[in-house]
Each structure stands twice: as structure tokens, then as C-alpha cells.
């Protein structure tokens, strides 16, 4: 009797373990491999691989992660930067990413991209996925998911992504098997390098709007960002990247200026700022939306100087461990650059 019971117990345990393993492998297999696909979805997760000793954290969308080169910030100013960027990152997602980051480290300065203030609703499931999947599980992630889900999404599908990607069996490639458990990083401290030139031409003016006021929800999360930085003693910089399009209305600029003054934070608008020294006939790869690597290096140089002069951010170049790490990164950066140029010329 006892023996039979034990046998039964073992049988059930083994069965459950096998099913769980099977599900786990299937899930790893079915999940999209961002590093060989849409790379914009890979960076949020890559942050956790870098040592949390950054004195500058930048949070935002492609206006950050395609426009700023952390290597220049390190080499020229000794600023150890990480960009926590993701495609179409919404302001409440920026907030929860900030929460997540502050759980790992407390940087001197946080730059938050405020161009997302124009969106009061989640834009697309795909963007949600790219921003949220890479976050490690925490209350911040749970809250971020609930704040971001479109009507068609469900929380369960974030907990068990297999439920979301179950039908990918039809598109599986060799990469899906190869990269099941490990993917190579695609970014350099969160920077996604772009090469090539497409001059900015014929950029349309903004379509006149009936109402320029940012949404309540945007302000609500901006307040939360401000408060969280104050609480942690972090200097907050609200920044609009140098991208020329989508159009940044003067009315929006005014609102941000007012907000910054009222809350005693810094607001830096980099659109059409001459001192940066950008030339949009050569420094952009997509007609003014984002910068190419040359543009990003120019902009980063400006940003580093600005941070030193206006915020007084520290120079960490004397830290030998960091120096060593950045030396390796610099090699990878150069290698990537030449690889990208080679791809471009092919």
C-alpha cells in the first residue's frame, strides 16, 4: 500500500517536472530573438549585464538610444553612462524603468526623454512587448505592464510569453534554436549605432492641433519621476533630443519650460540648438529623425560638456576598473563601427 502510494507520488512528480521543462524549453524557443531581429527590443534586458556603477542613466526612446554615444561621454568626460531605451517608450514606462534602475544603483544624474509626453495612451502591443519583456520581474514591472497594456493584451501573457508567441512555430529559424538561452548584446551601454547619411530635407511643419496640453496621465508620471529623483537625491534632467521630426511644437516646449521652473528641475531642449554643432545634411541616417554615429558623437560631446558645466557631474576616469571595462568596450565599438560601414558599402 505504502509502496504503491510512493510509486504514485514519484510518477506524478516526474510527470509534472517533465511538463514544466517542456513548457520552459518551448517558451525559450518561441520567444522572439531580438538580437537578430528587431534589435530595439534587446536593450532593456542588456542593462542588467553591465556593472551598476553608472553616474548617468538616460531613459527614453530612440531619440536617446540612437542619438547618444556613451563611449564619447566616457572618453571625453569620464561619465559612465547607460541608456535604458526602448522603441516608443511611454512616459509611464520611463517612470517604471527608473524605479527598476534605482533598485540596482543610484546614479548622480538621470536624463529622461520627454518627447513621449505627447502620448497619453499605449501605441502598440509590439512596443509594449519590446519595452516590458526585458525588465526583470519586480513590482515595477507588474505595475508597468498594467499601466501599458492595450485592450487586446493580458497580464498572463507577460508572465507566460509562450501564450503570446505560441503561433511562432510557423516562423522558427535556426537562430531561434541557437539563441534559446543566450543572446549576444546588440548595444554599447544601451546605444544602438547607426551609420549612413540621408540628409534632412522637406521636413513638414507640425499639423496644427486643437489642444496642445499634455495629458493628465503624462503629467502624473512626470510628477512621479520628479518626486522619485528627489527622494533618491538624483539630479533630474528633462531632455528633448535633437531629432527634427516628429515635430516638437513651441506650445509643448513652453509647457515643459513651465513645468521645469515650477518643479525646480532642469529642462534641456536640443532641437535646432546651434551650439551642438550638428549638420543635418550629414549627421543623420534617416532624414532628420535620428543621428548617425558621427552625429551621435557630436551630440554626445556637447551633452558631456553641458553636464559638466551645468550639473557638475563627476569625472570617473580615474576609476581603474571602469577604465579597463571601457577599454574593452571601445574596441567593441570600433569593431562594430567598421562592421556597420562594411555592411553599408556591400
Amino acid at each position, binding site marked *: 500500500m505504502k509502496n504503491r502510494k510512493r510509486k504514485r507520488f514519484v510518477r506524478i512528480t516526474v510527470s509534472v517536472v517533465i511538463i514544466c521543462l517542456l513548457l520552459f524549453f518551448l517558451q525559450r524557443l518561441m520567444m522572439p530573438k531580438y538580437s537578430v531581429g528587431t534589435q530595439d527590443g534587446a536593450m532593456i534586458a542588456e542593462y542588467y549585464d553591465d556593472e551598476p556603477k553608472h553616474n548617468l542613466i538616460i531613459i527614453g526612446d530612440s531619440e536617446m538610444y540612437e542619438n547618444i554615444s556613451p563611449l564619447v561621454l566616457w572618453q571625453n568626460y569620464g561619465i559612465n553612462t547607460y541608456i535604458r531605451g526602448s522603441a516608443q517608450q511611454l512616459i509611464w514606462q520611463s517612470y517604471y524603468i527608473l524605479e527598476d534602475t534605482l533598485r540596482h544603483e543610484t546614479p548622480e544624474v538621470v536624463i529622461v526623454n520627454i518627447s513621449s509626453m505627447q502620448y497619453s495612451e499605449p501605441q502598440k502591443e509590439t512596443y509594449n512587448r519590446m519595452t516590458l519583456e526585458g525588465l526583470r520581474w519586480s513590482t515595477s514591472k507588474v505595475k508597468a505592464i498594467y499601466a501599458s497594456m492595450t485592450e487586446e493584451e493580458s497580464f498572463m501573457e507577460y508572465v507566460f510569453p509562450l501564450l*503570446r508567441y505560441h503561433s511562432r512555430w510557423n516562423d522558427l529559424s535556426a537562430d531561434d534554436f541557437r539563441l534559446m538561452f543566450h543572446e549576444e548584446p546588440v548595444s554599447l551601454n544601451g546605444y544602438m549605432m547607426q551609420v549612413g547619411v540621408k540628409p534632412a530635407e522637406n521636413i513638414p511643419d507640425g499639423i496644427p492641433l486643437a489642444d496642445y496640453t499634455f495629458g493628465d496621465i503624462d503629467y502624473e508620471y512626470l510628477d512621479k519621476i520628479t518626486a522619485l529623483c528627489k527622494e533618491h537625491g538624483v539630479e533630474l534632467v528633462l531632455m528633448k533630443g535633437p531629432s527634427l521630426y516628429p515635430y516638437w511644437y513651441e506650445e509643448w516646449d513652453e509647457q515643459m519650460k513651465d513645468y521645469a521652473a515650477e518643479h525646480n528641475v532642469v529642462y534641456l531642449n536640443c532641437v535646432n540648438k546651434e551650439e551642438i554643432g550638428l549638420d543635418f545634411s550629414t549627421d543623420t541616417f534617416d532624414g532628420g529623425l535620428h543621428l548617425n554615429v558621427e552625429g551621435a558623437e557630436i551630440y554626445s560631446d556637447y551633452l558631456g560638456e553641458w553636464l559638466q558645466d551645468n550639473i557638475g557631474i563627476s569625472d570617473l576616469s580615474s576609476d581603474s576598473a571602469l577604465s579597463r571595462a571601457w577599454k574593452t568596450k571601445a574596441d567593441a565599438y570600433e569593431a562594430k563601427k567598421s562592421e556597420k560601414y562594411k555592411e553599408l558599402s556591400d
Partner: protein
Amino acid sequence: MQFVSYSFFLFLAIVFVVYYLIPKRFQWMVLLVASYVFYCFAGPKYLIYIAATTFTTWLTALQIDKLKAAQADYLQENKSLSREEKKLYKTATKKKQRHLMLAALLLNLGILAVVKYTNFAISNINAMIGLAGGQPLGYVSLVLPLGISFYTFRALSYLIDVYRGTIPAEKNGFRFALFVSFFPQLIQGPISRYSQIESGLFTPHRLNWKQVSFGLQRMLWGYMKKMVIADRIVVGLTTMTGDTAAYTGAYVLIEVFFYAIQLYADFSGGLDMAIGAGQIFGVDLPENFVRPFFSTSIKEYWNRWHITMGSWFTDYIFYPISVCKPMLNLSKWSRTHLGPVLGKRLTVYLSSFAVWLATGVWHGASWNFVFWGLSNYLVIMISQELEPLYRRFHQRFDVDGKLYFKIFQVGRTFLLMGFLRMYDCFDSVTTTWKMLLTVFTAGNWNILWNGSLMQIGLTAADYIIIAAGILLMFLVSMSQRSGSVREKIHAKPYIVRFVLWTALFMAVLLFGAYGIGYDATSFIYNQF
């Protein structure tokens, strides 16, 4: 809450745990609370409908039962009464019971009619007004309370059974409320009778793993039918039926086939989930489908498809009409005036007509369903009339019992029912007729092999999955003829069982048409 939803799994798990942990005498109360919680998910305001139906039928049945008891007591005490007096007394009390019963019946059917048929009535009134050139009436926005047709019919069967004296009235209103609202059968049936599930609902149940796993297996099979087959094939079906100008002729034939598969997989899959969920709690719900596509005639088909609805109409419409006084008089009259053959049939024809009209109307508030019901009626009556002819044919050519002939009959029934079912798919009766006619006139048979079927929203992979799913359904049905498939699997070694059920689970998980990218399709029978 849909059966195909994450919240339903969570809900089921919670109810399961509480059900088997709580002292057994409270088990049915757990189910009652769970059922009302389940109903709440559809919108708390609809609770009033189901509560009203429950309360009125329960109270009325109780009153009828009291009258019956009082009558028995009275007759017991007054044994000295003459036969005449007794009869007079019985008639008087019976009349009272009947009035009570009718009042409750009309009230509940009235509610059903108002929420379900108001807009249909308005559209018809508008059509007449339109002919007369007047101002059309506005439509009302009434949302159907979840499963109203199903629970109303369940409650009414109970009421009529009590009135007929076949079952005693339930004294405890909460127990009765559970019968009406039991959540597995709330959305789409089966339309069980009180006598069928009473013991299942109220007998204390010990946790029986075999029963629970059988229940889960039955549910899994239902999910496979619904999610892998029905929800996948429906994409192609809606593409075709959505554009009546482009998809004619051979496409309509494909639609006939697709819709047959989709409706069966969707509806019977839903019932598998319902019956499986019931089984988890030790409640055996009546079967609603017995391999309907294996039927050799339409009459047989209707004994195997949506069985609980068919038997409801037989018991509560066909039978009472056939034996009511005017009908008996008519029968007597026709037998003397029209001869014994026709005379005998006239009443059957009339009663059947009523049944099929009601069946059509029950299925939906539109003329399509009325015509659909009556077309079924027509086909059944004609084949009944031709019965002697068939028999002679069968004898002459010696086809009875031959496999090929049976296959022919099954195919014929499948096609005939398939064509009739197309009333569901088009927006009007005339469109349906026109579309069916194009099968014979369009002559576009080349679409069957020239790749056109890859343009209706289904890929080659979809077709493979659908075909494999249909094959699996077929094999399971074949095996079912000689007994429960789950019992057969249960008799196999553990490793075989484990592999089989895990494979089915993984198949549903991977090949189910659910989640983003697939429109969440609700069960076809939800709104009935």
C-alpha cells in the same frame, strides 16, 4: 467570463479547491456562490433576470405542490364524497394549478421574448410601415442576458414537470437556484432536467481523482475542438461569407463544409468543456451530441445533435400539442373525413410544424432561422412520406446494411444539413437561396485546385492543422462507437496515457487560434 479565458481557469481552480476542502454538506452552496460570481462577470445588472426567473418558477412550483398536497389531504379526509363530487373538486383544483403554472410560464417566456425578439419585431413592423410610407420606429438596445434561453428553458421544464406531477417541488429556493444557474451549463447548455442532475448537484462528493482527471480530459478535448479547429477555420469562413459577390459557386460548397465543421467543433467543444467542468465537481450533465455527422437521415441527425434542446421541444411542445383536446377532435374528424392514413398523420404534421417553427425561432431572432426551421420540417416530412418508396428501393437493390450505402446515406445527410445550415451565414433568406443556387450555376470549380483557397485568410499551415484536427475528431468518433475513449486510454500503461494527454495539451497550446493576432471569437451559442 468565457470558457476560453485565463480568468476562467483561475476561477475553476479556486472553486475546485474550496469545493473539496469545505465540509461536504456545504458543497452545493459553493457551487451556487460560484455560479452567481460567474454570472456577475457578464455584468451584475443581468443577475436580476436570472434571479427573477428562478424566484418566480420556484415559488409557483411550490404553490402548485401545496395545492396538490391539499387536494390529496382533502380527498383523504372526505372519503364519503361521490365520484361526481370528487371529479368536480379535482377539476377545480387542477384549474387553479394550471392558472398558476401558466402565469409563471407566460411571465418568463415574456421576458425572453422581450429581450430576444423586440428588435426583430420592430424591424418587421418597420418593413410594413415602410411599405405604407410611414416613419420607422427606433430600435431598442437590449443586451441579451447571458444564456437566457438556456436557463429559461431549464426553469420552465422544472415548472411543467412539477405541474405534471412527475417531480416534487424543491422546497429550498437556493437549491433550485443552483439548478437554474449551475455555471458549467450556464453559457450554452446542456438544457438539463431537474431530475437528471439533482442527485449530482446535492449529493456530497469525495474527491475522486479518476473523475476529476476524466473531467479535465473532457475539457481539454473541448478546447482542442474549439480553439484548434473551430477558431482557425472560422477565419476562412467569414472571409467567404462576408463577400457574397466574390465568393460564389464552388466557394459556397466549401462554406457548407467549413461551417459544418466550425459549428460542430465550436458547439460540441463548448459542451465538452461544460460537461467536463461538471464532472470535476461530480455532476453528470446530459450529453448533447452523439456523433451527429454519422447520421443516415435528418431525423436521426436531430436525435444526435443538440439533443437536450430537441427532447425539450418534444416533451413540452410536440407531445402536449398532439394530445390536446382540439387536436384529438381534429384527429377524429380527419380520420372520418380524410381516411385513416392521412387522418392519422395530420395531427403529427401539425405538431411537428409547431416544434420546428419554435426551434427556428429559438435559434435566433430573424427570418433566416424561421426558414431554416421550416426547411428542416419540410425535409423530414417529405422523407417520412417517401419512406415506403425508399424501402422498396432498398429491397430491390439489396443495399440495406451495405457499408457503401451507409456511407452514401451519411454523406447525403451531411450535405443536406450543410445546405440548410447556410441560412445562418447570410444576411437574408433570399441571399441564402441565391448563394446556394450559384453552386449549380457558377461553374467555378477550378478554384478548388488553382490556389484560390489560399487567398481566404488561411495558409497551408492552417489547412494542415485543420485537416489533422478533423482527422483526429473522426478517429475519436470512430473509437467512441465501441465505448468511452477516455476509459480506453485509461486502461493503457501510465507512460502511454501521459504522452497522449501531454501531446493533446501541447497541441492546444501551440496550435490553438487564440491570443493576439486571432480575433477572440465567442461561442456561437452564447447568445441563445
